């Protein structure tokens, strides 16, 4: 039915009949779309008409653009940061004095999924060992690990048969980071995956770790992998930080030409969100926390990120 719309008094939502209301709404929507398209076309014509003198294209606002400036953002040339990094707990690793050796374990009574995830993680990270925890206290494991020359400890916490937390602790007295782990995908759940990850040492990519806190976390991740990646293996492990979520992916790459590279995902994937960072090794009661995620204070703004 052809009905004329009178803009000032008539509104689509006032029609009582649902069918007619729906119809009128669709028509209104079409009209809006047409107007928008016409506006766009006009603007484009104006742009072309102006040619070189046209004002530059407006950059759309994204959350990354609008991010609240964090005062702890690391400046690449900052000396203080460089000095700190030369003297912190990862200095021996970065000076190539230690070779990373990692112990992966879970919370009590791990279920199948967690066990398989641990195994796959062990294949991804070179020089890592999986040990089952049968009710052993972490406080007692840690001195034993230090005695056996482990550099890092990873504990995967499990809840309702899926892994949901990760505690990464740098051993000889290093910082402990507690993450919340989500969307864990095992190898068989990844589509179009390749063959198994081989024993070659992968390269490491750390993206977007900008603040001081992000830097220290990034170094923690880097300290898991041995220093010299074997380029023959063509494997790369990526820790990409985006809006405080750290995405882990493991790929095999191949350079098709100098401007094109193909990547193929193998290996498990998961995302981490930092919950707390402690100065010493794992100690829930008496530890000194460098950073805790406080929901009330830190989740207030949508444009503020800490990593």
């Amino acid at each position, binding site marked *: 039915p052809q009905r004329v719309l009178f803009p000032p008094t008539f509104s689509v939502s006032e029609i009582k009949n649902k069918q007619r209301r729906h119809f009128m709404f669709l028509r209104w929507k079409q009209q809006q779309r047409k107007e928008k398209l016409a506006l766009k076309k006009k603007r484009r014509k104006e742009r072309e008409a102006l040619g070189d003198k046209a004002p530059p294209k407006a950059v759309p606002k994204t959350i990354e653009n609008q991010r609240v400036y964090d005062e702890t953002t690391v400046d690449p040339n900052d000396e203080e940061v460089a000095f700190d990094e030369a003297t912190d707990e990862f200095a021996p690793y970065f000076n190539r004095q230690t070779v990373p050796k990692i112990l992966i374990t879970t919370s009590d009574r791990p279920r199948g999924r967690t066990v398989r995830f641990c195994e796959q993680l062990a294949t991804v990270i070179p020089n890592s060992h999986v040990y089952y925890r049968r009710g052993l206290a972490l406080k007692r494991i840690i001195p034993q690990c230090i005695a056996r020359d482990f550099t890092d400890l990873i504990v995967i916490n499990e809840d309702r048969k899926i892994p949901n937390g990760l505690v990464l602790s740098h051993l000889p007295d290093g910082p402990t980071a507690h993450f919340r782990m989500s969307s864990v995908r095992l190898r068989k759940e990844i589509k179009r995956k390749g063959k198994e990850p081989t024993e070659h040492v992968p390269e490491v990519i750390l993206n977007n770790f900008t603040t001081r806190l992000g830097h220290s976390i990034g170094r923690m991740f880097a300290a898991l992998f041995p220093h010299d990646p074997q380029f023959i293996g*063509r494997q*790369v492990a990526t820790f*990409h930080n985006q809006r405080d*979520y750290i*995405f882990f992916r493991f790929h095999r790459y191949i350079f098709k*030409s100098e401007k094109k590279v*193909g*990547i*193929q995902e193998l290996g498990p994937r998961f995302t981490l969100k930092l919950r707390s960072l402690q100065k010493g090794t794992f100690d829930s009661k008496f530890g000194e926390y460098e950073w805790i995620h406080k929901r009330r204070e830190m989740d207030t703004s949508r444009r503020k990120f800490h990593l």
Partner: protein
Amino acid sequence: SSQVVWSMLGNRQFCSYKMTTKTQNFCRNEYNLTGLCNRSSCPLANSQYATVREEKGRCYLYMKTIERAAFPRRLWERVLLSKNYEKALEEIDENLIYWPRFIRHKCKQRFTKITQYLIRIRKLTLKRQRKLVPLRRKIERRENRREEKALIAAQLDNAIEKELLERLKQDTYGDIYNFPIHAFDKALQQQDAESESESDAEREEDDDEDVDKREFVEAEDSELSDFEDMDKLETSSEEEQEEEEEVEKKASHSKSKGKTPLKGPARRKRPYIEIEYEEETEPGSRTKAA
């Protein structure tokens, strides 16, 4: 009159402490000795009764006698038992000296059980406690949503590819990959003050590689649509390290699907055809069978 009480409460009338299940009747009375609803364990139906109960880690013996049946407030007499297990057993015996065997025995049994669970509590509190943190639905939903959006914003594949290409440009891979970097070379030549002969030689080499490259590139792209031979490429890349000049030729050769790595490009341009031959042996076999 305890008999009367039992005949009322036990079987016929309603007892609010009684809990029935399919197999058994339980008594919810806090002074009950065994926890079952029996003639001998009902604290209401026995005028002489005793129990052991614990409060804040200390065990007490409660006793009820007929004399005090009229005074509900003073009905239950409470005796603190010693912390020492054997001594406490003796105390129970002392207090219940002329009491029926059943009650004495059950009191001691109950006391034993209580001390055992108290010990267990003390041991468990020393071990690690699992802390249950409740999930907040709204927050979980919010975090999941934000994670999805962050994933979309991250554009991981692009980021990784960009980073890898950056590293290639920065020459972190050294001499493993020898791509003819035309633009870079030419720019370098223009910027650096090199002698003309050298630059000419380089340009000639580039042209040669260009010519070869062109032949292979077409077939390469079609074959690399699926990555089945990535592992074969690994082995080939080891060879690459040894022979730097013929790297590209070998790489493109080994990408063929067959097991013959070193065939020329012409071979791969033909599609792989399988030819089947039919053999006529049936009439022969039939006659033999007949």
